[in-house]
């Protein structure tokens, strides 16, 4: 076991504390600003989660990874389908199987369920693709993203295709977004 002194641990965690403090500071400032600014900051924090997630892969592997966007789509639809109230689902997606139609999980479990599904999908499709490197890997991930786009955009029975799905629960407030952003940064740091 590597013995690390407490002082060294604190010094190495300094960037993490700085980033987390920055996120909290932004959130506090947005908390007292008007609604438009608050909405922009929420979007900014969600983007932080997206970018940090993308860079956990790209920074460590050095490979351009386009498929992250496809996984965002998969996660979004999973979260939507599992947390939408059944009557909204019935209106937009009448062809869903029974268990999916009736499922209505609490709103906050949406992102975690979406993340879990994406992780499983990524494990399955990522294993063969990670044998490649360089531009072949970049093109392969690009193809993955395109496949996600085409499949989700045309599978009208499951996702409604190109139509908008309405009736999702709006639960991402300022502090929830802040929490997810902090969680992403901590995860990236620890990994």
């Amino acid at each position, binding site marked *: 076991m590597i013995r690390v002194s407490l002082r060294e641990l604190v010094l190495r965690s300094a960037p993490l504390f700085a980033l987390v403090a920055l996120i909290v500071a932004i959130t506090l400032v947005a908390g007292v600003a008007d609604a438009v600014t608050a909405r922009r900051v929420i979007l900014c924090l969600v983007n932080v989660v997206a970018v940090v997630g993308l860079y956990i892969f790209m920074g460590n592997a050095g490979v351009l990874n386009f498929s992250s966007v496809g996984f965002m789509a998969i996660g979004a639809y999973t979260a939507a389908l599992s947390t939408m109230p059944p009557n909204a689902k019935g209106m937009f997606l009448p062809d869903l199987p029974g268990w999916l139609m009736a499922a209505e999980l609490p709103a906050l479990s949406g992102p975690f369920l979406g993340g879990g599904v994406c992780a499983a999908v990524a494990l399955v499709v990522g294993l063969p693709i990670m044998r*490649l490197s*360089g531009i072949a890997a970049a*093109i392969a991930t690009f193809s993955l993203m395109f496949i996600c786009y*085409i*499949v989700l955009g045309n599978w009208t029975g499951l996702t409604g295709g190109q139509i908008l799905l309405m009736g999702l629960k709006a639960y991402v407030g300022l502090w929830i977004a802040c929490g997810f952003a902090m969680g992403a940064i901590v995860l990236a740091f620890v990994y």
Partner: protein
Amino acid sequence: MNAIVQIAVDALSLGGLYALTALGIGLIFRVMRLANFAHAELVTCAAYALFALSAHPLVMAVAGSVVVAVVLAVLTERLAFRPLRAADPTTMMIASFTVSMLIQKLLIFGLGSRPKSLDPAPILSQAVWIGPAQVSQLKLVTIAVCAVLLLALTVFLRRTSFGLQMRAAAENFTMARLAGVRANAVIVVAFALSGVLAAVVALLFAAQSGFVQPRLGVPLMITAFVATVIGGMGSLPGAVIGGLLVGVVTTLLQTFLPPDLRPFREAFVFALVILALLVRPNGLFPARGLKERI
């Protein structure tokens, strides 16, 4: 028999378009290691030039669109890519994404994002009989133009001294410069040639689809880029074969997939792309001197 002739014509004309676009991308990649995503914008701007000149005779309109595409290509090289020549390929690719987005947004800003209808060559929309099958004259012209251009490019690269300089620069840029090849001239000519190819593709594609919009070139570019990688990045025969292959596979899938799976045909094409990359990561015809050790 009818069906086979029609499928063949469809496949070859689509494959020809992809092959020409892939050539334009491959030319620049050979000399500069740059995957030029702004090529899509060259096609779009050439199509818009055709639209702007649609009141004039066809020859003038085509000449105008070629000039626009070449000028734009040379400008992007001079302003965006020359300063980045020493950077690594990923940086240059991201820079080309940026140039592409900039031009797209400028087009939307200046010309609006609604599609505008365009019919540059109305005489070509009539059908022609090959034996018992009825095929579109436009598709035959597409195939013929692609073949002629490929031949012309091959002759240029193999028989002229400038073509020799370009091939030398592609194989080993530094050594070619030491041997007296003028690097800037070679790169500018590569961009200009890709502009010409983009203009031709714009004419054929706009004639087939009938309208022009700011994102016209993007789907073409994406598929052609993928075709370039499958065929072997940096190899010109590879780009052509990759383009033809993707065109043929797309047409075959369109014809033979059951109707409810047809919207997903692009997904199948890209799944095949992943398979092709897993089997041959360097492409089907890897260019000598460009093989990375995968």
